[in-house]
């Protein structure tokens, strides 16, 4: 089996590569040629996979990759992923996260119509939802350009399934974290800085709203759900999350406590980092995935925080050597 992973360099791409290699897949990674890529997450995997480059603005480059790889499964994890930053580059985000998927689907229809396709959708589709928790039937009300572009990509994914009979699925994943999460995301920012503080490399941390609540899961569990969706008899969309929310404050408290520190001594609240809060919280009702995929979150919130803190501590100690 051959799998093509677009966005192989990211958190999810690297974990998915490991999962698929373990299952005996031949893995082809795709990275964008238009922006600089960091190989931190996949350095250890580079000898085991083939890499190709391409451009989401250029359908012909996507077609060329498909022709060359002839994949059985395609995972599209490549996208600008910061909702807040999407306000600064609305056209660019629409072009890559939205229109890019239109080009990719059209390339698949033309070149690899029998390949199975996974589109990385996100809880940002729900944005400011009318109900809580959310499942596959909840109406979408995106509240930033990132969520809107992802919603367009979701609709196109559904359309190509219903219209052309392609095996396309959209996985609506809630926040999922790990030691490979980018440092710009709040969870990793906390665990990395907490570890720095512990080692005397930092004095404090600036955060936005500590009361903001998120449904946080462990990325390794989530890439397994991606793979499972493509192994089903029929292509369908699934919501994936833990069904539980925790506040940024709780995250801080656990992370610092794990290092025998009191978070209250190190946090500075910065109103600039506040995001407007939703009326209903974003929390997953993953009962469909539980029933049809037998998927369940496997790691508790406490464990997730400790895994991330330990990894950051190790990373920093390695660097110090």
């Amino acid at each position: 089996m051959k799998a093509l992973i677009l966005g192989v360099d990211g958190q999810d791409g690297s974990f998915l590569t490991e999962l698929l290699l373990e299952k005996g897949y031949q893995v082809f990674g795709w990275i964008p040629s238009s922006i600089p890529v960091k190989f931190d997450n996949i350095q250890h995997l580079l000898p085991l996979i083939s890499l190709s480059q391409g451009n989401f603005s250029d359908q012909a480059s996507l077609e060329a990759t498909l022709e060359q790889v002839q994949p059985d499964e395609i995972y599209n994890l490549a996208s600008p992923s910061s909702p807040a930053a999407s306000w600064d580059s609305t056209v660019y985000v629409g072009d890559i996260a939205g229109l890019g998927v239109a080009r990719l689907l059209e390339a698949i229809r033309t070149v690899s119509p029998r390949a199975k396709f996974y589109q990385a959708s996100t809880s940002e589709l729900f944005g400011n939802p009318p109900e809580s928790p959310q499942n596959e039937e909840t109406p979408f009300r995106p509240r930033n350009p990132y969520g809107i572009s992802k919603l367009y990509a979701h609709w196109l994914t559904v359309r190509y399934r219903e219209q052309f009979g392609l095996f396309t699925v959209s996985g609506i994943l809630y926040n999922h974290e790990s030691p490979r999460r980018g440092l710009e995301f709040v969870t990793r920012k906390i665990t990395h800085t907490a570890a720095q503080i512990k080692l005397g490399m930092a004095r404090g941390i600036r955060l936005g709203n500590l009361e903001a609540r998120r449904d946080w899961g462990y990325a390794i569990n989530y890439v397994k759900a991606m793979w499972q969706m493509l192994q089903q008899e029929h292509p369908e969309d699934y919501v994936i999350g833990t069904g539980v929310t925790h506040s940024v404050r709780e995250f801080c408290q656990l992370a610092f406590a794990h290092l025998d520190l009191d978070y209250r001594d190190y946090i500075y609240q910065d109103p600039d980092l506040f995001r407007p809060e939703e009326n209903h919280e974003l929390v997953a009702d993953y009962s469909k995935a539980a029933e049809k995929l037998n998927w369940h979150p496997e790691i508790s919130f406490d464990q997730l925080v400790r895994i991330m803190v330990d990894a950051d501590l190790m990373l920093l100690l390695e660097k110090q050597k």
Partner: protein
Amino acid sequence: MKKALITGITGQDGSYLAELLLSKGYEVHGLIRRASTFNTQRIDHLYRDPHNGEQVHLHLHYGDLANTGNLTDLIYHIQPEEIYHLAAQSHVRVSFDLPEYTADVTGLGTTRILEAIRKSGIQIRFYQASSSEMFGAAKPPQNENTIFEPRSPYAAAKAYAYWMTRNYRQGYGVFACNGILFNHESPRRGETFVTRKITRAVAAIVAGKQQKIYLGNLDAKRDWGYAPDYIAAMWKILQHEKPDDFVIGTGETHSVREFLEEAFNYVGLDWHKHVEIDSRYFRPTEVDILQADARHAFEILGWEPRVFFKDLVRIMVDADMEMIGLQSPGEGQRIIQKHHGDWHRWEDQVPHG
């Protein structure tokens, strides 16, 4: 003098809107695409040659929705108070063949304009031409709270643009509004749209130039209104004190079959003898029933449709008959005089020369 910029000014809606705004004393600027053939016939009667020393209130600019810089420059130089964004790849069936182009123009084109407005720092009111196609499979009747279930690349791109318009309003405070217009037709409707295709065929059959017309799904039901009525709604949406989204439609729904019946009966013909079904015109995924619940617009804007289904068909058949050089039954002209005595006249319907 108020200034307005219209994208898509050469289309059905753009041309009527230009007439309405000129009649209200606006200076009107239109964005047109460079193409190898001139496609301005719907606005030629509005054009005044500055070389003749006439007062010129209509200005045309070359522009491209795929180009952000060009839009920013235009908006900065024109400094319009109002922008009506009507340009799109608007053919639903064609969007299945051209999904990327449709998304770039119909979807991202809106974001480029919103971004240009934000960067200009000018207080501009923005009208986004949203479409009932966004509702897709949603149960009728549809209103502002109905959940979108887009069934075509066109509808998905329009829904993207709808959400961007709302987000620029809520996130940046831009006076940005969505008019969610149900199907609206007129003698200026593009010739590949089913209503116009039918009324043109009726005229050609009466003239003995054609025998058959080939159509797709006759059971699709639409809420068809008269375009000039809907143009008035667009203007009202931007004059309202606060930005908001509005559904615009007649509240009635009729099938393509009923349209055929009405059009052929009007000239004393039996449609069964002239219509053939061609599966190529079926959409891969069809939208079955669209029907507007436009109470929000009735109540807040005081807008209501004046021309309904039967009258609409008559206006369109009459105009197509006159364009082909036939004597029409003449109901259409009477209907327009009765309902639209002001800015909208029968004489402008039929291109002259």
